[in-house]
């Protein structure tokens, strides 16, 4: 009825066509009437075969045989080609999977080697032997998503330096030392991969110490230096609260509203803060 459906049927029945042809040829050779009701095509096909008679019947048989064999081989080739295509595809997938597995394993081993090194040499000045984006501390997680790639000569020592600074702040709560170490880090690696994080933590530490003005400056500097940094939404939220405490309500509302439009944890915090303090 519809050409498209006919074609779909043709595609489906491609294999059957071959065997239908076979039936037709068999009939001309065997001349067995039992096959007659099977295919209407048979009534057309045998017509030229009948007058071919005895003289050429041998040659006709050979051609028919060749034709039959060609059809069988064509079908065989189609199926083999399908198999090759599938296997090529599977090999490609396996290769990719092997690579992915290796990268995953490498990442895990690196992380393991790093935590081991941290245990054996806890001194803050020790250089970690393995450089990788390990994910076993908040600082390292943030670092892995940092957008600025460091150009420092030794990424391992850069990370060790940054970690020692954040350890002073987060673990030892030694804020004065921590501030000094973070500033030193920014001097050593001004465009380093942890520079944005260092600026963020400086803002946080000054905020914790109650030095609102310095806190404001560091958060603003982060937004200016690394506008696409992963810490920016958090920094904006904190900056909003700093503005609020400094009495700069307009700026506070503006920046908090800006953050609350985004997604993530900072947006939620900003919304809550707006609700509590600005009835927004």
């Amino acid at each position, binding site marked *: *009825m*519809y*050409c*498209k*459906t006919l*074609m*779909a*049927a*043709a*595609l*489906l029945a*491609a294999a059957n066509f071959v065997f239908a042809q076979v039936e037709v040829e068999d009939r001309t050779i065997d001349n067995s009437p039992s096959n007659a009701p099977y295919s209407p095509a048979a009534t057309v096909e045998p017509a030229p075969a009948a007058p071919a008679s005895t003289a050429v019947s041998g040659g006709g048989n050979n051609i028919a045989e060749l034709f039959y064999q060609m059809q069988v081989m*064509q*079908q065989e080739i*189609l*199926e083999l*080609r*399908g*198999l090759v*295509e*599938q296997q090529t*595809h599977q090999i490609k*997938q396996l290769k990719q999977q092997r690579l992915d597995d290796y990268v995953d394993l490498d990442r895990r081993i690196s992380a393991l080697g790093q935590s081991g090194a941290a245990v054996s040499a806890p001194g803050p000045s020790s250089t970690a032997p393995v450089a990788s984006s390990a994910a076993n501390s908040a600082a390292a997680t943030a670092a892995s998503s940092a957008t600025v790639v460091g150009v420092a000569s030794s990424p391992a020592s850069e990370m060790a330096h940054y970690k020692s600074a954040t350890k002073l702040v987060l673990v030892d709560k030694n804020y004065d030392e921590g501030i000094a170490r973070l500033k030193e880090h920014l001097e050593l690696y001004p465009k380093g991969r942890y520079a944005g994080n260092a600026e963020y933590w400086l803002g946080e530490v000054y905020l914790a110490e109650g030095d609102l003005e310095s806190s404001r400056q560091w958060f603003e500097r982060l937004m200016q230096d690394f506008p696409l940094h992963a810490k920016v939404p958090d920094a904006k939220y904190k900056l909003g609260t700093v503005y609020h405490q400094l009495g700069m309500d307009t700026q506070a509302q503006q920046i908090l509203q800006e953050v609350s439009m985004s997604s993530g944890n900072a947006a939620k915090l900003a919304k809550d803060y707006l609700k509590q303090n600005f009835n927004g």
Partner: protein
Amino acid sequence: MTLLKKIGLIVVCVFFASAAQAQITIEITQGVDEPTPIAVVPFGGVHASDGAAIHEIMANDLRMSGFFRPIAPADMLSHPSRQEDIYYRDWRLLGATYIVIGNISRDEQGFALEYELYDVVSQQRLFRKITRGGTQAVRDIAHAASDQVYEAITNIRGIFSTKMLYVEDMGVDGPSRYRLVKADIDGARDQVLFSSSQPLLSPAWSSDMRQVAYVSFETSRPAIFRHDLVTGTREQLTNFRGLNGAPAWSPDDRKLAFVLSKDGNPELYTLDIATKKLTRVTNHFAIDTEPNWTPDGKSLIFTSNRGGSPQIYQIGLASGRVERLTFDGDYNARGRVSPDGKSIVMVHRENGVFHIAWQDIASGDMRILTETWLDESPTIAPNGAMLLYATQYNNQGVLAAVSMDAGLKFRLPSKLGDVREPAWSPFPK
């Protein structure tokens, strides 16, 4: 394919008043979980005389998108048409997230709709725009405004101004048994482009929407015709022995790809419309059919059984290099490339049932989009967010639509004959 009996689904059917005159109406069978409530306030100013109120058409469009739940004008506490008349508290009580207000004015040239979109939560105006149109273009104005509202909120270009083609089989022998119909995408303003006593197949839009190509059996064998929608002239492009089918326009509208079996078995060809130069694209003793251009115009995807079962392949027109794209299942056919060229949709057979499936080309991930039976002829919206396909419902051929994430589904049943072979137009230029 034989006709299988379709089990009727019990669904909530929503009929739209504004589409009532149209032959095809819309029934939403599955919407998104929480559609955004939006109030399209009846517009101030003069009203169009043909009875189709613009705000109703817009509400209908937005509902059809599945992302919105329009609020009925009767439920609104007020019908503001100016910013100063909006009381946000009232709208928040109604649960509206957005409000559309505006005014219609009329001059010698026609109507002008001046409309504004407001965010109820932030109490801010998102935009203010003016859309103009002739006296007969009320629906065009409404659809254009719906497009703007949809895009402003979802960041996805709206498709309400697009059109569709479909073939209708009236089921009664006669000179107008098969009809090629052009209609708005909401089913309204249906217009018969051509009718014939013999089957019509595979309508395809040119990318400038000025021409369509289709297969007609009027000359007793299938032939490909080009139909100019501006002048109404028709031209027969092919008249070869055997199959002449599945035309597809190149993205620059200069060429047409199709299938001919003049040399024995179906192969892909391209025809240069201006020079009438015919180029053979595939050469294989297996069946090659159903070509579709990639958006860059550099390659075709097509269905072939060269691997023993129907699968979708891609061929580079310059290189002639063939690459297989589908590996899931033993039947994948009628591929269509998405407008961004990154994914394909196709007819996929699973457990003997034909569904529409989506596949990411790079990763090979496949997703089955439809649960209906005997689904065929997928055609993708120009914004890539939805597709139309033909299926069976209540023993009748109907069109249905599904979003690419399978979240939204609706049917477009016809009041008259069997509807098949949809073709979603490109964006109007």
